[in-house]
C-alpha cells in the first residue's frame, strides 16, 4: 500500500511518547500504521491532499511543547463582553493557573485520570488522524458537567498555538455531561505567530439522557496552519447537541464532525460558516448516524469563497433500519466571489428505514448583481452593498448562535472581513 510508505515521514512523532495511557497509545500507533495517511484515491479525501501538504509544509515531525502564555494574552483573546468560564490551553496543554471555573464543572488532566474512557467514542480504527492523536497526544483535559447541572455561563476553551519549527500539536479533550445537564462550549483557536504547524485535535463528547450541549468552534489560525479536527459525540435519548463551526482562515483545514444519535427524541444540529480567501482550503465532512426512531438532525452550512480559496462540503446522513420517523434536513449554500474559487459539495444520504423525512440541497452561486444594483441605487457604495448582501447570506447561520457575545464577536469579524460595517 502506498499509504503505508507515505506515512513513514511521521515516525519521529512516535519517539519519546508520554508514559500515560500506554496500551491506548500503542493501539493508536498500530491503528495509524494499518490505515496510513489517506491519499487522493481515498473517497473521503478526494479533494483534500492532506498527506502531501503535511510532508511539504512541516519541517520537524515531533510534538510541540507548550509555550508560556500570559494573563494579558488571555485578556486580549477573550471576546469583548464575554462573561463565562475560561479554560486556557497552550499547544493542547491545559493551563490551570490561567483558567477559571464554576460550580458543577470539574476539569482534570487526562494524565491524572487514566480511567477516562478516551477512544471509546472517537475510534482509532476508523480514522488515521484519530489514531495518530491517540498515540501522540501530550496530555489532555477531561471536562465533566455534573448531573442535572445547567451551566448558564458559556465555557470558553482558549487554544493558543505556536510551534516555531513546524511541529505537531495534538490536543485531546474529553467532555462528559451527566443526565439532564446543560452546557455551552466555545472552542477558539488562535495562532501566536505566522509560522506553520499541524494541529491534529480530537474532541469526544459523551452526553447523558436529556442533556443540552452546544459546541461552537471558531477557527482563525494563521494561513500556514494545517488542521484536522475530529469532533465525535454520542447523543442519548431526549438530548440535544448543536455544533457551530466557523472557519475564517488557515492553510488547509479539515473538520470531521460525527453525531451518533443513540436514542429517541435525540436532536443533532450542525451549523457552519466558512469565509475563505487567499489559498485557504477548508473541508467540512459531517456525519450523522440515526440509529433510533423519532430522532432529528438539522444541518446548514454556508460558504463564501474568494480569491483562489477552495471549499469542500460532504454531508453524510445515515438512517438505519430501526430509525423510523427520522427527520433529517441538510442544506449547503455557497457564494463564489472569484472565478478561481472552487467548491465541491456533496450530500450523501444512506437511508435504510422506509418512514422518514429527509431532505437535502446544495447551491453554488454568485453575488446577486440585481440586488447589488438596487442597494447602490439607494446611495450605498458598492463595497458596503456587497458586504451587506454577503452578511445577509451568512446571517441565517449567525442567527443560530444563541450566545449574544459570541454572535456579536463573530459578526464583527465577518463584517470586517467583508470590508464594511453597518
Amino acid at each position: 500500500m502506498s499509504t503505508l510508505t507515505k506515512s513513514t515521514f511521521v515516525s519521529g512523532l512516535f519517539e519519546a511518547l508520554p508514559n500515560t495511557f500506554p496500551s491506548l497509545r500503542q493501539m493508536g500507533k498500530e491503528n495509524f500504521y494499518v490505515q496510513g495517511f489517506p491519499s487522493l484515491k481515498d473517497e473521503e479525501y478526494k479533494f483534500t491532499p492532506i498527506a502531501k501538504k503535511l510532508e511539504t509544509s512541516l519541517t520537524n515531525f515531533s510534538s510541540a511543547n507548550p509555550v508560556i502564555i500570559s494573563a494579558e494574552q488571555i485578556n486580549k483573546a477573550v471576546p469583548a463582553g464575554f462573561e463565562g468560564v475560561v479554560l486556557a490551553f497552550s499547544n493542547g496543554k491545559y493551563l490551570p493557573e490561567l483558567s477559571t471555573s464554576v460550580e458543577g464543572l470539574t476539569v482534570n488532566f487526562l494524565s491524572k485520570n487514566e480511567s477516562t474512557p478516551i477512544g471509546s467514542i472517537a475510534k482509532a480504527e476508523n480514522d488515521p488522524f484519530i489514531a495518530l492523536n491517540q498515540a501522540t497526544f501530550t496530555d489532555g483535559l477531561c471536562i465533566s458537567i455534573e448531573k442535572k447541572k445547567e451551566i448558564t455561563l458559556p465555557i470558553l476553551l482558549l487554544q493558543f498555538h505556536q510551534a516555531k519549527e513546524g511541529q505537531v500539536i495534538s490536543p485531546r479533550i474529553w467532555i462528559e455531561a451527566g443526565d439532564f445537564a446543560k452546557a455551552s462550549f466555545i472552542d477558539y483557536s488562535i495562532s501566536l505567530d505566522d509560522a506553520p504547524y499541524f494541529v491534529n485535535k480530537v474532541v469526544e463528547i459523551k452526553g447523558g439522557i436529556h442533556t443540552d450541549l452546544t459546541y461552537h468552534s471558531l477557527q482563525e489560525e494563521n494561513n500556514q496552519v494545517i488542521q484536522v479536527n475530529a469532533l465525535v459525540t454520542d447523543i442519548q435519548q431526549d438530548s440535544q447537541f448543536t455544533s457551530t463551526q466557523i472557519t475564517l482562515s488557515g492553510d488547509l483545514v479539515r473538520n470531521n464532525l460525527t453525531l451518533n444519535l443513540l436514542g429517541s427524541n435525540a436532536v443533532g444540529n450542525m451549523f457552519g460558516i466558512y469565509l475563505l480567501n487567499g489559498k485557504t482550503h477548508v473541508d467540512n465532512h459531517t456525519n450523522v448516524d440515526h440509529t433510533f426512531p423519532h430522532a432529528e438532525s438539522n444541518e446548514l452550512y454556508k460558504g463564501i469563497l474568494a480569491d483562489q480559496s477552495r471549499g469542500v462540503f460532504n454531508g453524510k446522513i445515515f438512517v438505519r433500519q430501526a430509525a423510523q420517523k427520522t427527520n433529517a434536513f441538510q442544506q449547503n449554500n455557497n457564494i463564489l466571489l472569484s472565478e478561481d474559487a472552487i467548491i465541491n459539495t456533496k450530500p450523501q444520504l444512506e437511508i435504510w428505514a422506509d418512514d422518514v423525512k429527509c431532505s437535502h440541497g446544495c447551491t453554488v452561486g454568485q453575488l446577486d448583481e440585481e440586488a447589488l444594483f438596487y442597494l447602490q441605487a439607494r446611495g450605498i457604495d458598492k463595497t458596503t452593498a456587497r458586504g451587506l448582501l454577503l452578511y445577509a447570506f451568512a446571517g441565517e447561520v449567525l442567527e443560530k448562535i444563541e450566545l449574544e457575545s459570541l454572535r456579536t464577536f463573530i459578526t464583527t469579524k465577518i463584517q470586517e472581513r467583508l470590508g464594511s460595517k453597518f
Partner: protein
Amino acid sequence: MLSIKNLHASIEGTPILRGINLEVKAGEVHAIMGPNGSGKSTLASVLAGREEYEVTEGEVLFQGKELLELSPEDRAREGVFLAFQYPIEIPGVSTTNFLRTALNQVREYRGLEPLDAVKFLSLMKEKMALVEIDQKLLSRSLNEGFSGGEKKRNEIFQMAMLEPVLSILDETDSGLDIDALRIVSNGVNKLKSENTATIVVTHYQRLLDYIVPDFVHVLYKGRIVKSGTKELALELEEKGYDWIKEEVDSTATV
C-alpha cells in the same frame, strides 16, 4: 434640472435607445408613455446607472453634472431616485437596516451629520404615514414575501426617506390595485415641490389621473416621437398606440 441630449444606449449590442432628447425643469412632472418594448424602462435604468446598458452616444446633464460619469450610488447621492418596476427581494436585509445605511451615506455625501437611531426612527415614522406602511413590514427582510402593493409602497417610502431631487417612477402602477394606486400616488404627490421633478414611466393613462403630468411624451422604437400635455395621455387611452406607430412607421418609410 435634467437635460438629455441625443441619448443612445444598447444592451448586448442591440440598440434600445436611439436618440432621446428631453428637458426636465424643477417643479415639473413628465410622463413617459409608449407601447411595450419601446425603451421606457431602459431610459429609467440608464438614468439610474444600471451596468448592463451601454451608452453609445449622447449626454445627460443633471444639475449641471455629467450624470453618466457617476456611479449608481453617486447618482442616488446627487438626488436621483429610481422606483423599481420590479423591486428586488433581499433575504436577511431589513428595509430599516439598509435604509439607515443608505440615508447616512447620502447625508455624508451631502455634508450632513449622520442620523442617530432615535432621529432615524422618528423620521421613519413620519414618512411611513405618507404611504400608510406598517413598521413591522419594514423590519422584515426587504420585500421578501411582500405583496405587489407592499413592494411599491416600500419604494415610495424609500423615496420619501431619501428626499430625491429627481424621482423616476418606473411602471409604479404595475401590480397595483386601485387602493394601492391611490395610496402610492398620494405619497408621490405629497413629496412633490417646486424644487423637485418627477418622471413617471407608465404604459397606462390611469396613473396619470392621480399624478397629473405637465408633459406627456410618447416613446417608440427608442425615440420620443410625440410630446404634449396631459390630454395626449387621454387620447392614447382612448385610441391606443397603433395610430402613433402608423404615423411614425409611415414617415420612416418615406
